[in-house]
């Protein structure tokens, strides 16, 4: 789909998804202040605790890819999974409740940010282990194929994940078994405090996929319309022939690796340049060209803010899980045997 063919309605829908993700990340970041143990910082009380990986600035990848997904499509995510979850259609309130560790969260407070999931919409979970979602996506695709139909699995992973073995193993597997997986390398240029390029030999993610025989394309991951168009084409191909495809979306991690990471190891210039490519700003320009009015975007922004504020208030007021919940959902066989 070219920019000209893009309907204003669809463009605004993509913008809305990004605005909701941005507002969610900003609120989560705010709620995490002082409460994260990462990077040696000491612990204090905060609403959102533990390592919080924000996808701020990467909204276009989640919004563009998930715009092409149906509810019966499955999705595996990473430690940086809020955007994928929102874009797949999860409730922002239940997500925020999970980040606050409340009983009303998606995982009942068991998982938090790093393990957020909504199986009711096919979101099979964020994951604390880099590249762990790749083989899981491959297996899920086997299940879809046995079920019949043309549903697919969208498998998100970072640029750092392509240097782990499961990347090679998973792509090869999907290739030989012709499995309906859309592999999405969300390339934000960084792996924690390390520039991924310096740790990656050869031409990178897409070239590796192609070498294994999984075709795909690279896109500007900050251009939601480009991501959307590429995902539309690739998902249509997957639905038609059942074989895997690869999307290499190049974006940038605006924030530190986790919310408490000031990212002092990278240059201000680099970050400043990236900020000029803000996906919401880019989309706004394109929407204006399509005849959309600034006021419409402002209204979307305001709606997103209001929705997030309500979610934060709800999460803040929500009950903690009972301690007895620590002993549920572990296993049936041998349940109640906690010690000996």
């Amino acid at each position, binding site marked *: 789909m070219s920019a000209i063919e893009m309907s204003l309605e669809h463009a605004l829908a993509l913008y809305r998804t990004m605005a909701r993700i941005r507002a969610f990340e900003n609120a989560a970041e705010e709620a995490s202040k002082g409460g994260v143990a990462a990077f040696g910082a000491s612990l204090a009380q905060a609403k959102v605790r*533990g390592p919080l990986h924000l996808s701020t600035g990467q909204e276009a990848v989640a919004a563009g890819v998930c715009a092409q997904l149906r509810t019966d499509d499955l999705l595996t995510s990473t430690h940086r999974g809020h955007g994928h979850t929102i874009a797949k259609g999860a409730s922002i309130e239940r997500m925020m409740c999970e980040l606050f560790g409340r009983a009303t969260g998606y995982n009942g407070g068991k998982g938090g940010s790093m393990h957020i999931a909504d199986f009711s919409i096919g979101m099979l979970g964020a994951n604390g282990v880099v*590249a762990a979602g790749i083989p899981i996506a491959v297996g899920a695709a086997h299940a879809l194929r046995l079920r019949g139909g043309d549903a697919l699995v969208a498998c998100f992973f970072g640029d750092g994940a392509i240097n782990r073995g499961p990347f090679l193993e998973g792509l090869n597997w999907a290739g030989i078994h012709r499995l309906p997986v859309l592999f999405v390398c969300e390339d934000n240029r960084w792996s924690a405090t390390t520039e991924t390029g310096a740790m990656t030999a050869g031409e990178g993610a897409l070239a590796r996929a192609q070498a294994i025989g999984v075709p795909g394309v690279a896109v500007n991951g900050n251009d939601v319309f480009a991501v959307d168009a590429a995902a539309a084409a690739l998902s249509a191909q997957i639905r038609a022939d059942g074989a895997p495809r690869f999307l290499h979306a190049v974006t940038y991690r605006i924030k530190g690796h986790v919310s408490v990471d000031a990212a002092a190891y990278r240059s201000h210039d680099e970050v400043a340049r990236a900020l000029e490519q803000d996906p919401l700003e880019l989309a706004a320009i394109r929407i204006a060209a399509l005849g959309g009015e600034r006021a419409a975007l402002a209204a979307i922004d305001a709606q997103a803010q209001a929705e997030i504020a309500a979610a934060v208030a709800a999460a803040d007021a929500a009950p903690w899980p009972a301690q007895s919940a620590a*002993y549920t959902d572990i296993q049936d066989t041998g349940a109640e045997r906690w010690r000996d």
Partner: protein
Amino acid sequence: MARLSYVQAACNALHAVMQQDARVVTLGEDVGRGGVFGQYRGLQQAFGAERVIDTPISEATIMGAAVGMALAGLRPVVELRVVDFALCAMDEVVNQAAKARYMFGGQGRVPLVARMPIGLWRGSAAQHSQSLEAWYAHVPGLVVVAPATPQDNHGLLGAAIASGDPVIYMEHKELWGLEDEVDPTRIERLGVAALRRPGSDLTLVTWSRTLHDALAAAETAQDEGLSIEVIDLRTIWPWDREAVFASVQKTGRLLVAHEAVQAGGFGAEIAAATAEALGVPVRRLGAPRIPVGYAPPLEDAARVTPQAIVAAARELVGAPARGA
């Protein structure tokens, strides 16, 4: 003597060893920026990128390459972030590092130290909170070390690097900021426990972060007239049988407390060995067999608290002592 944090003590120790021994190299994710916990701060600047090696996110190859380095004459210190990710390198630890010396008839040795921090860490949930020392202690060929103090994180890291065997070195994520006086000249030996508090009614064996809860528990118990002797094991394998048995012979009772899941935890081994050898009443206290939850009430359910330690001690003393 200098006042150092647990993390800085280890950093200084590694710095000193790398200065003395050109065979010592460090490899792992993010080490060039000092490591995500700061355990490697300044090392790449001091020793260069050839000896402080940034790696891709490739745990299997980080560990496997370290085995190769060791077999070829280097002494690698391997950064694996946390034990939960070290599982991605399990084959390289268990089938390669631990077996090479024996399997090849002693032709090669694998003198490496694999650092894989353990433990609860507020709000880090099920995949970043585990204590898996018993898994590694089960494997012949591996030494397992779990320091609880800045002094030990200095001395034991040096001893681990010098040992000549593969050492699983388990720091605790909640201890990084703990400060204490550190004597950098003090030499530690692996396999030697430390008596942290003398007592007469029972012996409490523990390690890692739980030491600090054990000491708090012993203090509380003292007020109730219960005298607990606290032993910090420091090395999980080989554990210091002599020190534990000598203490238990005096007190007549053994309690082992650790943060790891109780069932199949290393406390079971110590309790069984002590009961076999001395026939005294023994008790274990570890976490229930549940994954670590994110929300505080769930996470707390997996915590071994000073109160629980006191309660277990009381119960044990209620039991008749034999062999004392």
